[in-house]
């Protein structure tokens, strides 16, 4: 992958009033997710009620930006033509330190990716917007989320 991700013509998110805080934070390089004040669990993706206890007392909190790689795929034939110039590229499932799992774009590290790798938030301009992508934490490095 040598293409400039910024220039991709990829489909952007379909933002609603409810999900806007997530995408506003993403544009600023932050990852913010909902937390339930009743059952204490973190929630991803955003919802009007907690999927664990159906409470409406959900508040936004910035996530640590750390997570564990649950699975990944190197995509050679993208499902959307806007991604073709970037292929092959990697998407993965990240179990956030806060609990929920999200799918994201994974930036290349110095070593081949393995399930179980620890990842760090790496805000990246893709297709005209900043997305909360992730990158592997290199061995020995102790980086702070950006």
């Amino acid at each position, binding site marked *: 992958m040598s293409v400039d991700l910024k220039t991709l013509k990829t489909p952007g998110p379909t933002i609603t009033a409810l999900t806007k805080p997530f995408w506003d934070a993403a544009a600023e390089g932050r990852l913010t997710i909902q937390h339930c004040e009743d059952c204490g669990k973190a929630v991803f993706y955003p919802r009007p009620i907690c999927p664990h206890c159906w409470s409406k007392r959900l508040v936004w909190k910035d996530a640590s930006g750390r997570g564990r790689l649950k699975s990944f795929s190197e995509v050679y*034939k993208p499902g959307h033509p806007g991604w073709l110039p970037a292929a092959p590229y990697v998407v993965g499932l990240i179990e956030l330190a806060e609990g929920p799992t999200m799918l994201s774009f994974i930036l290349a590290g110095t070593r081949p990716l393995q399930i179980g790798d620890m990842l760090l938030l790496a805000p990246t301009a893709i297709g005209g917007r900043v997305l909360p992508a992730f990158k592997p934490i290199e061995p020995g490095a102790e980086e702070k989320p950006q």
Partner: protein
Amino acid sequence: MSRSKGAIVGIGELKPRRLTSGVTTLEMIAEVSRLAVLDAGLEPAAIDGLLVGPQVGETPQHVPATIAEYLGLAPTMANVVDLGGASGAGMVWRAAAAIEAGMCEAVLCVLGNNREEAAPRSPNRNPIREFDVPFGASGANISYALLMQAHMAAYGSTARDFAMIAAAARANAQLNRDAIFYSKPADVEAVLASPMIASPLHLLEIVMPVAGGEAVVVTSAQRARSLRRPPVHLLGAGEKVTHRAVSQAPSLTSGPLKSAMARAFQQSGTHADEMDLLSLYDCYTIMVATTIEDAGLCAPGQFGAWLGDRDLSHKGDKPLNTHGGQLGFGQPDLAGGMTHVVEAVRQLRGEAGERQIGKAGLALVTGNGATMSEATALVLGAA
């Protein structure tokens, strides 16, 4: 064994095609419905129940009424079943339940689709569209690649283990003249040599999308006795729906089919090892692997060794997807799941011709929708 919950008394199937031109989905549904009702030996007016699938694009709403009007039916029970690849199996159980509840007596369960060269992209607005697609994950291939990668990492399963499933499907398709891959076998080496689509998923581990149609007619066991065809009985069923997006799956290496199959076995008083035919939903090789393990046919992670020790052909000790599966037959969209029901009926009637299995008493049929999300299992028994 448990009593019959209802009987499948008619089947219809259209030969799959890569493309249709100027043919509507509604037209294909009419053709295949006629085949199933003729096979049952019923007059059209006897059909008083109608179960159909969603018709994305062509008929977004009022689907049962549209199809009923088109077919000249006036059902007393009509519904859309929207369980993706589990819709076909899900229809059979719902049809039996509706008959038991007194809503109707004879249910037409029908799925079909045309396939045009340039289908419009979906105008979806849902969590997957908002939180998966912008990150580069569009379509089912990537989701199932993520499931496959997780299985390989958890258990050490290999690309070759998975390729065996695709090769077996292609081999079985050589005895089904209607299969899209009839006269096109592919061995394990060919599967492994096919292009990587989304690692670790190869092209030949993915179903070929086709146009087609499948239909069955379900009625009560009692009424089935008076009809012309040998009835195939629904002995047990189970269903579970756990999530939609792969990121929200409770597990990446086991799915909702596990509890759906357990319930189907429990209701029917049977066990996975007793099945004479495994008619397992196979959109991707990983789906068959997980289903074999979730059924309890082998320990988690052991599907490769299990498959390697078995003959999956109609002559074998463990016939699996004798019609070629969808990997060999082609996937006519939502009707793809119903191919597993239709083939099980053929085998249990003893009408599968040159691919007829020996003992044909019990069949396990599974349906799977979305990303290992929607699951229905049926245990079917011969008359």
